[in-house]
């Protein structure tokens, strides 16, 4: 590398006037902002992975191979209860964030417990639906439609399971270690994860279940 290039790169390093953190001479942003931003990028990549499963489902939904169609296997009541569970759990997760912002141990734990219970009810309903389908011989091997359906909805269910394990870990860590900075960063990422799961479920209940019931 010659001197001219070095000079050139040096010119680009000239700081801007702003003294706010993360800008110009203000130094790096706080760790919390950097952790949050990094996890935000992970969540967006996770959503892109889900969009591939959505695309596969959209293409394969008519390929029922003389098996049952979406309309015949979906139960609107069960989907409505699952949706209510996840939406309420997203709200109670927000309440836990408010309590954690106040370093209030009791309310944080209580709101997290309700969040976890709602998530658990959601998983039970989904497990009941899946086991019912498999018992009737309409498992993922029955048709391309059912393969795509089980992959998409099952992947979301796996995310909720992972979220529940994470939630339990956070409850234990907040209880044992208090609102330490590193614990707050983990907890903060967990709330982003849980809210993102609900956003993906909005797409699943609207575009998979309700559209499927209409076809």
């Amino acid at each position, binding site marked *: 590398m010659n001197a001219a290039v070095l000079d050139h790169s040096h010119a680009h390093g000239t700081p801007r006037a702003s003294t706010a953190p993360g800008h110009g001479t203000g130094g790096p942003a706080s760790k919390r902002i950097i952790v949050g*931003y990094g996890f935000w990028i992970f969540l967006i990549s996770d959503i*892109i992975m889900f*969009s591939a499963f959505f695309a596969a489902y959209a293409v394969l939904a008519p390929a029922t191979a003389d098996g049952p169609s979406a309309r015949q296997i979906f139960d609107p009541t069960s989907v409505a209860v699952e949706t209510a569970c996840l939406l309420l759990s997203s709200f109670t997760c927000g309440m836990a*964030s408010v309590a954690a912002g106040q370093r209030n141990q009791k309310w944080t734990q209580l709101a997290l417990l309700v969040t976890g219970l709602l998530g658990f009810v959601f998983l039970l309903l989904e497990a009941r639906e899946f086991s019912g389908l498999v018992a009737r011989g309409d498992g993922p091997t029955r048709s391309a439609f059912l393969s795509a359906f089980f992959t998409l909805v099952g992947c979301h269910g796996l995310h909720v399971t992972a979220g529940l394990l994470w939630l339990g870990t956070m409850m234990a860590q907040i209880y044992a270690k208090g609102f330490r900075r590193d614990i707050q960063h983990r907890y*903060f990422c967990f709330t982003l994860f849980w809210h993102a799961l609900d956003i993906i479920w*909005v797409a699943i209940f609207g575009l998979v279940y309700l559209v499927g019931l209409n076809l």
Partner: protein
Amino acid sequence: MSTPADFEPGSSPEGDSAPGYESETREGVRAAIRGYLIGLVLATALTAASFWAASTHFIYGPGVPIALVVLAVAQMGIHLVFFLHITTSPDNTNNVLALAFGVLIVFVLVFGTVWAMANMNANMMPPMG
């Protein structure tokens, strides 16, 4: 105001905000709870509208999936604003740009796949014999 030892700002004046960041002052608690409540009410209303649109004969049949897509996108927007606190303010520029890029990729992936596969289906040779 005394600052707790573990205090670390999730936002700074003229700086950047972490996604999901909300005010942590005492006065901010009421506003934060109100924000989540507004989000919950709007999301519930849109969910109810989706279930209504799927079961009613009020909407022209082939238009129902389009109505459901519009309602789902609207509800995802509500979740982003009221639960994940993604806003249009300058301190959220980084978060919004990352999201916009993600939305672009999702759009290309889903519509590209559906478009290409529908085209290939249309060009399939009819079954022989």
